[in-house]
């Protein structure tokens, strides 16, 4: 019985299709100042991400390596380096585009690296649209876990309603919906609610979007003896290089 348990904990590596894609990601973000809620800090981030498959797992999901090829950030008009160029995380996802897990996320974060607040990048890459016909709208969930440290765990869920705007070799999809965050850091409860909308171009076979533009507004809170919340606004574009 014990031997069987061990066997079921293992995975069988199989070579995935070999392809490498580059994505240009642009995010404009605004973070309400906690000390002065009428003011906000502005951030503009440009990333080039390289995504390549590492191996196919037993459940037919694929492990991908996501490398930051270049990064440039401007925070309150000051040019900054976040220190993540060349660093990578790994995602496990189905080839049709559903994200299952993210590992080595800690590689992209450090105190004030900003990347811990820019988890929207995972929705940009893995929006998980449903199969939808021209005459209907359908709902789907895009979920991703976040863990930057052993003492922190969060889960982000975006529930969107999708419509198909046009279809040919590629499909243009529109979406709108609500975001929910639940988690903890140390003894503090994390929660958040938001609203997002946008549009994307997908290959008809699915996968990561070819293009994705949209916006998200959310309120992120931590609760201990008191509750502190921050309003955060994001507009974003992402485009896969030919």
């Amino acid at each position, binding site marked *: *019985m*014990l031997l069987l*348990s*061990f066997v*079921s*904990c*293992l*995975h069988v590596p199989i070579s995935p299709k070999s392809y490498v894609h580059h994505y240009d990601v642009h995010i404009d973000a605004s*973070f309400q*100042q*906690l*000390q002065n809620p009428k003011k906000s*800090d502005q*951030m503009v981030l440009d990333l080039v991400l390289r995504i390549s498959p590492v191996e196919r797992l037993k459940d037919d999901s694929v492990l991908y390596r996501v490398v930051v090829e270049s990064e440039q950030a401007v925070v309150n008009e000051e040019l900054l380096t976040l220190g993540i160029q060349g660093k990578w995380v790994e995602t496990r996802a189905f080839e049709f585009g559903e994200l299952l897990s993210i*590992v*080595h996320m*800690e*590689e992209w*974060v*450090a*105190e*004030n*690296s*900003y990347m*811990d*607040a820019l*988890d929207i990048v995972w929705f940009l890459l893995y929006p998980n649209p449903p199969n939808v016909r021209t005459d209907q709208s359908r709902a789907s969930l895009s979920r991703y876990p*976040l*863990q*930057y*440290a*052993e003492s*922190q765990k*969060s889960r982000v869920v975006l529930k969107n309603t999708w419509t198909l705007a046009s279809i040919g070799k590629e499909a243009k999809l529109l979406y709108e919906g609500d975001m929910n*965050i639940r988690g903890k*850091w140390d003894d*503090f409860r*994390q929660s*958040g609610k938001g609203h997002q909308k946008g549009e994307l171009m997908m290959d008809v076979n699915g996968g990561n979007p070819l293009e994705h533009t949209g916006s998200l507004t959310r309120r*992120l809170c*931590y*609760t*201990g*003896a*008191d*509750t*502190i919340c*921050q309003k*955060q606004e994001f507009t974003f574009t992402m485009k896969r290089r030919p």
Partner: protein
Amino acid sequence: MILFLMCAWAQDYLRAEVVEGMIKEHQDVLTGCSELSNQLYRVRFSIDSKGKLTLIEGEECFHVLSQISFPLHPSSSRRFLWHVAAQDGVLFPQSLTREKQSYVRFPGLITSDKEKVMTQLVEK
């Protein structure tokens, strides 16, 4: 759930001394590193819960470390830093330590003063 508990029960957490011992035991896989010039090298790698090693940072020849099967362990992926000296084609392991997890306070909140956030949340 029962299966998960059995997996966790049967495995030890992966400690640096276990990893160090296993690398020393399998050091012969590093034959490709005999060309390294004489200096101290820094090798960073992670080992996931299934015992698979992935090189994060280091000379190309250290990639073969991924051929070693480390024990299954119930913790999430752990990262290690190995210092190894090369001298006339021979590797001399120096130290192997587990890297501390990154420490980000209140992930997702952007503010220049997280101490104040902490104070406010603890002392209402």
